[in-house]
């Protein structure tokens, strides 16, 4: 039996401090964020803390968000573009539990901090907004070099030749670059980043943006940033254009549109409905809702 100990734990364990992490951890995270902003695209190592959700579920993004949030902030969490995805709901609930005062929102334009997995919102973000990405693989070189120490040297020397060789091999084998998401993107003319598993559709949004993009890899313990007004260029060849997902129907040649709001320029989720027919719908739920609201207001 441990009576004294147990009482201590009950008292202490009942409430956690604001934003869960201890203050030293938050301070360390903020220092890493500053460094990441100062060296665009450079992966800053940090002592990633364990979160109460599993590694791989967004612990890097969560630590950034927890270090950024103050009681005046308004926060939005999305996964696959949607607010109601299980993981987004789970993380939102955690913030609700541990960040008293912070306002939750589903509206992109209302949020000061947005944590995301796999998407950049369709609505262009403003200078007073921060987008926090959850990152599984922070290093774009991992596809060509498994050893972390070697990769670190390669980044320092901006030695990315093997990435281009990979693209070239794709062209030889498939006549197409086969990288679908996590597209290697050169930041400010030096470091190449893994922009997290966003689709190619979202990569151009990184370039010369108004807002700050922060990337947090919890398991791999790295933070990096694409600051506002910074070049972000997906790597490709002079004679092979970077191509985003096109959603064109193979037979009609027409682009599919969202079945809810009719958008013909958004990233779409494609899925079979109950009758087995393929349907298309905006992946960004807030964007879709906003368009529907506007249409309703206009009518």
């Amino acid at each position: 039996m441990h009576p004294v100990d147990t009482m201590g734990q009950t008292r202490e364990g009942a409430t956690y401090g604001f934003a869960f992490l201890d203050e030293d951890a938050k301070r360390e995270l903020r220092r890493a964020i500053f460094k990441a902003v100062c060296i665009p695209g450079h992966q800053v190592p940090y002592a990633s803390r364990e979160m109460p959700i599993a590694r791989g579920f967004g612990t890097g993004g969560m630590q950034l968000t927890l270090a950024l949030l103050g009681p005046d902030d308004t926060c939005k969490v999305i996964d696959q573009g949607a607010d109601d995805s299980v993981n987004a709901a789970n993380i939102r609930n955690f913030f609700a539990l541990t960040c008293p005062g912070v306002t939750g929102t589903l509206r992109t334009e209302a949020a000061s901090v947005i944590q995301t997995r796999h998407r950049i919102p369709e609505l262009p973000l403003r200078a007073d907004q921060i987008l926090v990405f959850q990152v599984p693989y922070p290093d774009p070189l991992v596809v060509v070099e498994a050893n972390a120490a070697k990769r670190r040297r390669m980044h320092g020397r901006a030695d990315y030749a093997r990435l281009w060789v990979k693209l070239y091999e794709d062209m030889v084998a498939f006549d197409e670059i086969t990288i679908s998401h996590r597209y290697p993107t050169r930041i400010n003319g030096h470091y190449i980043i893994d922009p997290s598993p966003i689709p190619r559709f979202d990569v151009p949004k990184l370039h010369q943006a108004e807002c700050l993009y922060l990337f947090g890899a919890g398991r791999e313990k790295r933070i990096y940033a694409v600051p506002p007004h910074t070049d972000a260029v997906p790597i490709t060849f002079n004679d092979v254009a970077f191509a985003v997902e096109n959603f064109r129907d193979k037979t009609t040649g027409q682009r599919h549109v969202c079945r809810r709001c009719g958008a013909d320029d958004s990233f779409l989720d494609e899925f079979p409905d109950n009758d087995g027919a393929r349907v298309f719908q905006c992946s960004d739920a807030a964007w879709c809702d906003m368009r529907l609201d506007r249409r309703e207001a206009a009518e």
Partner: protein
Amino acid sequence: MAYVAIRGGADAIKGSARLMDALRAMGQSAPLELDQIERQMPLLHSKVLSEGSLYHPRLASLALKQSLGDSLEAAFFLRAYRSTKPRLGETAPHDTRTMRVVRRVSAAFKDIPGGQMLGATPDYLHRLFRFDLMDEGPETFDQITRDWFGNRPNGETPLTFPKVLDTLRAEGLLAPLADSDEAPFDITREPLIFPVPRSAQLATMARGETGGLLALAYSNMRGYGDVHPTVGELRVGYVPVMVPHPVTGKPMEAGEVLVTECEIVAMFEKTDDGAPVFTLGYGACFGHNEVKAIAMAVLDRAISVAKDKGRIANPSEDPEFVLLHVDGIESMGFCTHYKMPHYVTFQSDMDRLRAARGKAEEAADAPR
């Protein structure tokens, strides 16, 4: 943060959590008491203590109860709790010679100073079911306890024992212990950037996942490597935790932790002055977990061999390969995450496959 009501996912995860709880409660079994977990499943409990990297026996029991007995999940509870606690200070290195020993064996010598002490071990049990255990009452426990203590003479065994390896050191067969004044690497406050010092290597393995360490160490034992360990000494016991007094700075005892420690002696190597000596591998972890301590000691040696030779010949000798893959919280989390929605990236994959197939069809249709 104010709660935002939304559709779908939020309701589903709430329902799922309630069902988890219901599965635990439904049926006829009595609620598990934390003491039962700690007392009757001490080896499972030990795994959680060491992989959770927080010595809190009571919370380790709660973690096991809450995680329905999954040791990875239970260790995870302790780790997450740890993130909310600041680091208060640093202790001086602990000398395990002060360990209150409950078991110690050496495979290197028939007899050792202080004697071999088998203690409690399943090593020589026949793994035959004792079907009578299926129906035990409290009176059985009383009887077993009485029988054990009944004929025990007091003060027969000493509390502490000398180290077996000191004998080898005295003879010069092992290199003398170097007094290191290097500050230990705190893996909870610094990320691993390779190359890392040995203290980081040991700390990472000390909270590594037992199965992960075992798999990599076993690969070395089988032939992907050549450590060929002899267990110089394996000891289990309670080590007094000495922390600096907040005012005087003098070390004072704050409690004790159950620790398993293993020192393996490996093949000899040349030293700078030419006389060869045996080499050493070290493993230690919270709780009673001998497989983990031995596996860790083998890997410690394997990595050091490669470092000395400047050549990595096997996965178990590669510090990056070993240290970045033995953490149970990280590997389990990442493995689990594949169950989460990935439909945006899959959409993107389909786009690329369709494009590549389109190109292939064009090429097939093109006139030759």
